[in-house]
């Protein structure tokens, strides 16, 4: 998304250096903002979907961990948390959850 914002800024700079009718310039700017916003919305929808799937998988994984009767309850809980973190970090590779948790605790 940051790259998209940079590209949009570059488009503005390049557009200013081109001589063209004002209505065409405005039309291009409107198209650009439409595209950027659409990309942003689509990315957000995709991220939400992935997060929902990851949470669902994490819940299943937690259930499976709960069925491990051979280990202590504390160990089961720790294992379940690790599995949840791994799955959710996979869909949020840009900012892993364990970093976020550490930051929020700090």
């Amino acid at each position, binding site marked *: *998304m940051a790259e998209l*914002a940079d590209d949009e800024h570059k488009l503005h700079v390049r557009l200013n250096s081109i001589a063209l009718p*004002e*209505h065409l310039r*405005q*039309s291009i*700017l*409107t198209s650009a*903002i*439409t595209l*950027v*916003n659409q990309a*942003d*919305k689509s990315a*957000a*929808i995709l*991220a*939400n979907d992935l*997060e*929902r799937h990851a*949470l*669902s998988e*994490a*819940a299943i994984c*937690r*259930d499976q961990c709960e069925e491990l009767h051979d280990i202590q309850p504390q160990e089961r*809980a720790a294992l*379940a*948390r690790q599995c*949840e*973190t791994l799955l*959710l970090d996979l869909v*949020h590779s840009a*900012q892993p*959850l364990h970093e*976020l*948790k550490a930051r*929020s605790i700090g």
Partner: protein
Amino acid sequence: MSKPSQTKEDRQDASVPPIAVLSLPDHTLDQLRMGIEDNVPYGERIEKVSAELRLRSDPDRVIPGKAVEFPWSREARARSKARDLSIEARLDVFKDDLRAIRIANEVLNRAATMRAVEAAEAAIFEIRCLGETARFAILNRTHLEMTRQFLEQLESIESFRGRVSNEILDALKERALNEFTARMNRASKADVEFSKSEILRLKS
């Protein structure tokens, strides 16, 4: 070769006694300057002024012509000098007229250019306003949609309460809020900070 109108005028001038010529209104110029006689059309007033100028620059006003005149006589020489001066004066008036026409033309050209520039600026401003309005509408729709997505995301996270550990869910909600803030700021090219505690309290 003289023009027919001039010939007619000369004939008229010759038929009119000098006293009658001199008695023509000399204040026409003043009237033109002061804008008196508003009911008289402007073109007619100009014609009157032109006629007055012609009469006043006529050498016959100084020395009226005679039927018989010796070229070496004092009157003939004075008449010749008056004619030269009259021609010179008429030429000066003609030059002044041309200069005035040139200045008026320049003023009109500049006024036309300014009007064209003003019209172009107004048109460009209108186009820009329309563009900004369209973009603001797009931005507004995007903001509404992003807010709706954010609320759905919070609800989705909350729906897993009890099935996934609470720390993970709280961390996910905080991340969702951070991303929502960043996305909104990026869309509106602003730098707004939302109150996390206030927003998160709504759902927790």
